[in-house]
């Protein structure tokens, strides 16, 4: 069986491809920073407001928990449509890179929140009790005990989320967000150019590999293993 396809014209596509890679990197990094921080805050609140936590509060925990459970299962592509009105009021437009980043941040924040919470639950409650016995208040305990004690697993959790965010960025093509995913669809899939698609896949795999190696290395260093 032979497959015929047009040889990719890298002279023409080269600069577009590079631009797409740049777009992906920007979208993913901004999402990791903003969505990651937001998720960290929500995750820490989920952990500390649950019963027995240092900021124990049933209503806050309940609201956050329901919110996270509500948003997390929504497929990203539907989230783009669903959040369009919100995106419009915050970003001013529902298309383009900024709009894409906005929705990615929301989606990432809630995914990160659960992962943060799950990693914090594993902390030995004894060390928190020890800090309390020494007179540390809740915010001190969060910043000087909870986060440092869970840092290694948290780094791995963020590495895991990084891949999900790269995956999200591929779908941003639908609202003109650009990026490698968009490039692969427009110049690869729709142009029946498998070579372009493969090139896009290889670049994504490389980015993910680098992130995973970096995450593993960092967490090992933190955990001293």
């Amino acid at each position, binding site marked *: 069986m032979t497959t015929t396809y047009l040889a990719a014209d890298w002279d023409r596509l080269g600069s577009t491809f590079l631009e797409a890679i740049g777009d992906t990197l920007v979208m993913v990094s901004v999402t990791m920073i903003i969505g990651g921080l937001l998720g960290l805050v929500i995750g820490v609140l989920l952990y500390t407001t649950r019963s027995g936590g240092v900021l124990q509060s049933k209503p806050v925990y309940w609201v956050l928990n329901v919110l996270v459970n509500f948003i997390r299962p929504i497929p990203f592509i539907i989230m783009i449509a669903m959040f369009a009105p919100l995106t419009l009021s915050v970003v001013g437009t529902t298309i383009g890179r900024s709009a894409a980043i906005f929705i990615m941040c929301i989606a990432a924040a809630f995914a990160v929140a659960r992962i943060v919470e799950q990693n914090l639950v594993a902390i030995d409650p004894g060390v928190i009790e020890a800090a309390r016995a*020494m*007179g*540390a208040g809740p915010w001190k305990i969060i910043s000087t005990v909870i986060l440092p004690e869970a840092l290694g697993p948290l780094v791995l959790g963020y590495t895991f989320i990084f891949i999900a965010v790269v995956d999200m960025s591929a779908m941003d093509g639908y609202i003109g967000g650009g990026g490698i995913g968009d490039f692969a669809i427009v110049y690869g899939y729709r142009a029946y150019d498998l070579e372009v698609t493969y090139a896009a896949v290889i670049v994504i795999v490389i980015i993910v590999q680098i992130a995973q190696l970096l995450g593993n290395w960092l967490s090992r260093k933190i955990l001293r293993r």
Partner: protein
Amino acid sequence: MSEPVTAPPRTGTRIEFRDVTKVFTNQRKAETRAVDGVTLTVEPGEILGVIGYSGAGKSTLVRLINGLDTATSGQLLLDGTDVIGLSEAKLRSIRTGIGMIFQQFNLFHSRTAAGNIEYPLKLSGMGKAERKQRVAELLDFVGLGDKGRNYPEQLSGGQKQRVGIARALATNPSLLLADEATSALDPETTHDVLTLLREINREFGITIVVITHEMEVVRSIADKVAVMEAGKVVEYGSVYEVFSDPKTAVAARFVATALRNTPDQVEAEDLLAHDGRLFTVDLTEESGFFAAAAQAREDGASISIVHGGVTTLQKQSFGKMTVRLNGPEEAIETFRATLARTTDIQEITR
């Protein structure tokens, strides 16, 4: 300058429980009285041992002192200040004056030994240079001068507890709470840690409350002992009083575990397989045991020691001895009657 570790003796905290009760309510609204109407005073500089089986409420009792749990009713005075009902902020400032050590050590895994000891100093707002000096002093004091850079997982159990103790002492507390602090340690390390606690108590005059389920711990360091059962303090007294004359069954059981000077059931049955009658006699300095034994021999009975032990507690010795008597009934009865007047004597029968 920070206060050197070898500071002149301070006054320890005086703790006064007045009818303190702690009720836990679970999700199904079922109530558990973890601490039930406890009234107890710990004098400054005293070491109180709180002993009881698990679930007796001893951990809760001690957690009420530094407000990790809040009592439901009663008064709990620390040097005259009632901690029950204080705001979390006020409790935090009280906690900085109370050190606490734990069964599982509860060291921060993300910090080195030195970092762990430094933590309460950072909380107290001490400057960096001062902190460094104080940490070095404390590491030396607990005998870990060269282990400051080690992380908890690189230390043995005994070393971890020493770090825990140094951390608890960092802010010069006048009260130290030890929650089963030696229960995860082997006997030799337990002995070292207890010796260190005793040293701390003698040197700084710190009041210490030790929770344990091992009577041996109470015996080696406590001045007073409170025996807890089902949330209540069922027996309280000096260690000598409770050891030499336990009033409740639970106290007697604990004392027996530490002294082993009366034959247990299996041993008693083995002993009863032979001829003669068995008596367990309390030995005190005035018991008159030797005179009674000499008399029994004169009356034609033979007497042999089959079990027993004598120990020294708080500078007084006491013990129990189980003896076997063979011979004329009258001689044996005289022996029993004589000792019954001066001490406690009990016959072991099937």
